[in-house]
């Protein structure tokens, strides 16, 4: 079990190293000169040379990467070109808003997805199952930013007081949460439905039915026990796509989180901020996946007892 967790931690670190290479390469793809971006187009050559020296841009690439990595490991992601603030500080200050939004959306997505998947599996092969299947596909197919905009239009039409943007307490959380959660909920419900359908065809389910257990009990206790595990992994992996959704949701609802920060960074071509938000998102996902791995150890006795360790 410890070996299993150690392997997962090493893997997480490797992922972050790989990500740092990718974010570092972003800075090299850009045709514009960061020194010019910082000092303005009218700066004289001496100033530009000085800024390049300050940024370490006059050194070989691998030295620059080593410095970048070293600073990142110490929590220093550089300074925003536009805002002239520490990128780490900007990200940390925006993180709570994103965390609240992502967690509440994840909770809603899981509740809705599990409910839809269970109901569809209980009515397997019947009309309700089909309706839920098409419904979940529709949820997955909906562009997040459009859904958000439609909700805004609908709510603005019926209420003048409901908060339409920004971050001001519980009420303002409702629309962004629904917007962000719907696609993931559709996805989870489909996966749970597939897992349950597979489980329901197994011998142990037939045995449980043979014992005279009710359908509901077989579904909830026996089939769910095996169908839930993959869903846990999925929710961990889905965090990556959820963070993509966060960018769109926060942009639509003017939500002061990291997604909105990333959007502004891209809009202003603020390279350190772009690199920082990508690296930080990868960091969040690695941490989330580690938590999922730990949860897995707890949920799956095969790993706990070392069979798969």
């Amino acid at each position, binding site marked *: 079990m410890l070996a299993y967790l150690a392997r997962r931690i090493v893997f997480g670190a490797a992922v972050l190293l790989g990500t740092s290479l990718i974010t570092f390469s972003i800075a090299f793809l850009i045709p514009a000169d960061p020194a010019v971006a910082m000092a303005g187009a009218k700066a004289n050559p001496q100033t530009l040379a000085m800024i390049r020296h300050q940024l370490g841009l006059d050194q070989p690439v691998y030295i620059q990467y080593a410095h970048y990595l070293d600073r990142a490991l110490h929590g220093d992601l550089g300074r925003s070109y536009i805002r002239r603030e520490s990128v780490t500080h900007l990200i940390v200050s925006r993180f709570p808003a994103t965390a609240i939004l992502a967690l509440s959306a994840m909770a809603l997505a899981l509740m809705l997805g599990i409910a839809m998947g269970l109901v569809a599996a209980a009515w397997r092969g019947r009309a309700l199952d089909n309706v839920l299947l098409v419904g979940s596909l529709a949820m997955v197919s909906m562009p997040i930013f459009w859904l958000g905009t439609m909700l805004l239009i609908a709510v603005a039409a019926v209420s003048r007081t409901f908060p339409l943007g920004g971050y001001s307490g519980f009420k303002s959380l409702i629309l962004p949460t629904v917007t962000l959660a719907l696609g993931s909920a559709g996805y989870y419900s489909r996966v749970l439905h597939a897992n349950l359908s597979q489980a329901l065809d197994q011998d142990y389910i037939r045995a449980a039915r043979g014992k005279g257990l009710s359908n509901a009990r077989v579904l909830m206790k026996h089939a769910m026990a095996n169908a839930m595990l993959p869903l846990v992994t999925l929710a961990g992996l889905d965090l990556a796509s959820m963070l993509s959704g966060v*960018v769109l949701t926060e942009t*639509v609802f003017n939500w002061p989180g990291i997604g909105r920060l990333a959007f502004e960074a891209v809009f202003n071509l603020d390279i350190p901020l772009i690199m920082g938000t990508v690296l930080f998102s990868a960091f969040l996902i690695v941490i989330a996946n580690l938590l999922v791995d730990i949860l897995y150890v707890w949920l799956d006795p095969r790993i706990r007892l070392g069979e798969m360790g």
Partner: protein
Amino acid sequence: MKRRAGTMELVGGAMVLSLLAVALFAPWLAPHNPIRAVAPTFGNPAPPSWAFPMGTDELGRDVLSRVIYGARISLTVGVAAMAITMTIGVAIGLVAGFFGGKVDFALMRFTDVMLTLPGLLLAMAFVSVLRPSLLSILLVIGIVSWTGVARVVRAESLSMAQRDFVLAARALGASSPRLIIRHVLPNVMPIIIVMAALGTSGTLLLDASLSFLGLGVPPPTPSWGRMIEQATMYFRVAPWLATFPGLAIFYAVLAFNLLGYGVLRRRSM
């Protein structure tokens, strides 16, 4: 279960065909020029009317015509980006699955790293530094979307590489590239086609999202995502500007999803 097999992919297929028809025959279907002011309401978006069923935008352009022409650019980007995605994903999946061992390990760990990154955020970062153009958007969408394809193709070709007919061909002296292209690839083709349908729904959404964030194909080419981006400023006074292009994206993504999942579901049963 068997009795309703086929309905989903038939409906999805019909929806895809209708999209292709709209894109192909746009000049005949569109009542107006999509990039010219045709309404006298210049400066003020006008709501849907008999003359303009989807209303007009702030420049007096006909929204219906723009949505129809938008099918061209959106589908072109979606399908072309899917082709790039499939090329990268199939190549990596085939090589990893066929050779196995260290090659497989290295390629799959690389896939895991890419899978961990939020695709849209990465795409935003790359498109913004490369500057939005048709080519950069296609490339970037391909670069961030191939991971799912690679995993599925790898799993399929892993089992295929150990089948008797492949081993027999190898015993006859066939080279690895020949084995991959002549023997493994044709047998993983069905799943590749399914992944292509599903992949198109993904690339369509990603392209629309990038457009919405202002990183799409530059104007005045009417793309659905770009139309919604411009409409957000008017969402209180002119909700129809965002509604119809969004419905078009939704319809297109749903079409490819129905087609892909319909086929996939029948395969797995």
